[in-house]
């Protein structure tokens, strides 16, 4: 009996050792992100890279749509039930400040883990809260003008004629193109709300002042932004698509000559294979008569965050550091297969970035976009980012319907202040 017991004890001990060893051997890092062709693909490639550095770590990627990611995080944080959250989440840059300041302490501090000097300043800034960094920047949202060079040519213009121009010049050319070819120069989603973010950022201005208070009423840049958008719409040179599907279809079927959008739209532009060689990429127009106005801005993009609650936060941070924040080669791989343009500046030196792109008539579009993104002005996004944008969107709509701009901007300011009040 004694013998039996001692054997049993040994077996149990051995088994538990094995279990512990087994558990240590395989650390699984789970990741939530969306878009199989883009983010998920990149994450899986990064996992391959890291497998060679640290073979004991397994990366498990789970597809969760971006809104769903946010809903689940909100529900988890507010109820304190965080067991089901992953180790790493992808988050839209625009949502960063909302989550960082509403749920302090929920994300892992990456300040000392990542060399942030390798990333464009404007991009890093989306996830800085009280001087600390909480995200590894990923895909580039650098705004660019994707334009049909053949339609331009028909109207007597070249790509150079729409490069480094002002909005008023753009509208002029647009009218001319419309007259000569019958095609609206620009397509965008209904309401033109994207420009409410792109244009102010191109002039280095945002909706809030240094203290984080709304800075809408009497803001010259915002006023110029709304005026420009209305002029553009009134000139009849914009096709306003009812939704994303129609927007993409206007691009791919030649219903409009260009779009001004984050560079990730490239993946949709190249879908129209019959238009290969007929497209070009250049920078976006700048505001007239505004000090500090540039031809560069940002629209969209996302970054990786590590959850503070994660048991493997340190490993997750190391994983991100060695891949998304440390491997030029990795970025060449994902660029070639998925068109995911980096915000990791050293990546631009790789061969994939310098290669000419056939769809764009041999233009080295990726190198150009990297060059644009280095010049994007930095702005301070704030907690009430979406609220301010929505208020401005409403103001723009009312202004286009014939309202008085100054009072509408005052109204937008009041709306945001109302929402900030508790």
């Amino acid at each position, binding site marked *: 009996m004694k013998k039996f017991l001692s054997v049993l004890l040994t077996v149990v001990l051995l088994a538990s050792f094995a279990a512990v060893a087994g558990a240590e051997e395989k650390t699984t890092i789970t990741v939530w992100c969306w878009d199989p062709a883009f983010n998920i693909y990149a994450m899986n490639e990064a996992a391959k890279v890291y497998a060679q550095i640290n073979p004991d770590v397994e990366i498990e990627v789970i597809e969760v749509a971006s809104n769903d990611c946010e809903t689940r995080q909100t529900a988890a944080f507010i109820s*304190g039930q965080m067991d089901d959250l992953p180790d790493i989440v992808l988050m839209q840059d625009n949502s960063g400040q909302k989550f960082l300041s509403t749920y302090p302490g929920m994300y892992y501090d990456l300040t000392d883990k990542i060399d942030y000097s390798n990333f464009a300043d404007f991009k890093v800034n989306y996830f800085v809260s009280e001087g600390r960094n909480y995200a590894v920047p990923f895909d580039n949202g650098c705004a660019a003008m994707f334009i049909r060079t053949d339609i331009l040519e028909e109207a007597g213009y070249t790509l150079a004629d729409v490069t480094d121009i002002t909005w008023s010049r753009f509208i002029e050319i647009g009218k001319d193109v419309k007259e000569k070819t019958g095609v609206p120069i620009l397509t965008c989603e209904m309401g033109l709300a994207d420009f409410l973010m792109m244009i102010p950022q191109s002039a280095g201005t945002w909706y809030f002042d240094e203290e984080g208070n709304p800075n809408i009423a009497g803001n010259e840049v915002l006023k110029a932004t709304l005026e420009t958008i209305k002029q553009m719409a009134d000139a009849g040179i914009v096709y306003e698509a009812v939704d994303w599907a129609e927007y993409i279809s206007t691009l791919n079927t030649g219903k409009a000559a260009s779009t001004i959008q984050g560079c990730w739209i490239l993946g949709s532009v190249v879908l129209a294979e019959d238009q290969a060689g007929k497209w070009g990429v250049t920078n976006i127009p700048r505001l007239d008569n505004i000090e500090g106005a540039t031809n560069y801005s940002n629209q969209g993009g996302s970054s990786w965050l590590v959850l503070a609650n994660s048991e493997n936060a340190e490993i997750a941070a190391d994983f991100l550091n060695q891949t998304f924040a440390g491997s030029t080669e990795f970025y060449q791989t994902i660029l070639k297969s998925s068109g995911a343009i980096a915000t990791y500046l050293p990546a631009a030196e790789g061969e994939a970035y310098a290669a000419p792109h056939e769809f764009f008539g041999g233009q080295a579009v990726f190198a150009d976009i990297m060059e644009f993104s280095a010049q994007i002005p930095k702005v301070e996004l704030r907690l009430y980012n979406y609220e301010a944008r929505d208020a401005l969107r409403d103001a723009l709509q009312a202004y286009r319907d014939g309202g008085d701009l100054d009072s509408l901007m005052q109204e937008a300011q009041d709306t945001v202040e109302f929402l900030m009040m508790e």
Partner: protein
Amino acid sequence: MSQIRIRRGKLRPARVAKYAFLVLASFLSAFPFYWMLVSATNSNQAIMEMRMFPGANLIENWKTLTAGYALGTAFLNSLRNATVTTVCALFISSLAGYGFVVYRDKYKNLVMSLLMLSMMVPAAATLIPMFRMFSRMGLNNSLLGVMLPSVATAFLIFMFRQGTQSFPDAIIQAARIDGLGELRIFLQMYMPIMKPTYAAAATVTFMNAWNAYLWPLVILQSPDQITMPMLISNTMNVYVVDYGMVMLAVSICTIPTLVLFFALQRSFVEGILGSVK
């Protein structure tokens, strides 16, 4: 007899109008459905051009969908969740609906009015407290967790309560005289006779459970618990949307509701009196 024939003759224009109205209503109802099915067979490009006829891209779309997404898992999860929810909901709610009518008294009427109140709170508002409560009970990622909130709904109880009001009281009295117990009267007399109401209730309950989004999203976070609406949400949340594939996923998503409708619709139309006679 001849009188009726004359009457029918007179009614002819009215009958034409009736058919015209039904044809119009059917056409308007079916058109988006038709477009959805057609789009599932077309390429992304063809859908962008609003192509209205079947294409040859169905197999291609199927391959993309099954290669990129756990379609089988999501479909079976949704099917399991919706079926179990429907069966439990129908039983518990019809029991209560029957109870409220057959054993009517003023206290029960008061309870019913209170239950009605529960129907009127927007789901978005109770989501967080519910999630908190379910997490404490350890019901995350479980079938019980996802179905429990829809098992007893004031909506269904109300539906059965209204349906029961036309249930002949004589049948119950006769059964009692025959010495049947109260539960057996419910199971053996009421349930078979109320088939039309059960069929209608099953159709709408299944439909609601099948399409449920917000609650499953937060309570079922584990990837092996993914449901069809979550999967469709994933297919749309990409930089480059493949609408052919999305439409195929959406078409597949409608199959169970339709099958159920086909299977049960006879019950709405054959009716109790027909079967009793």
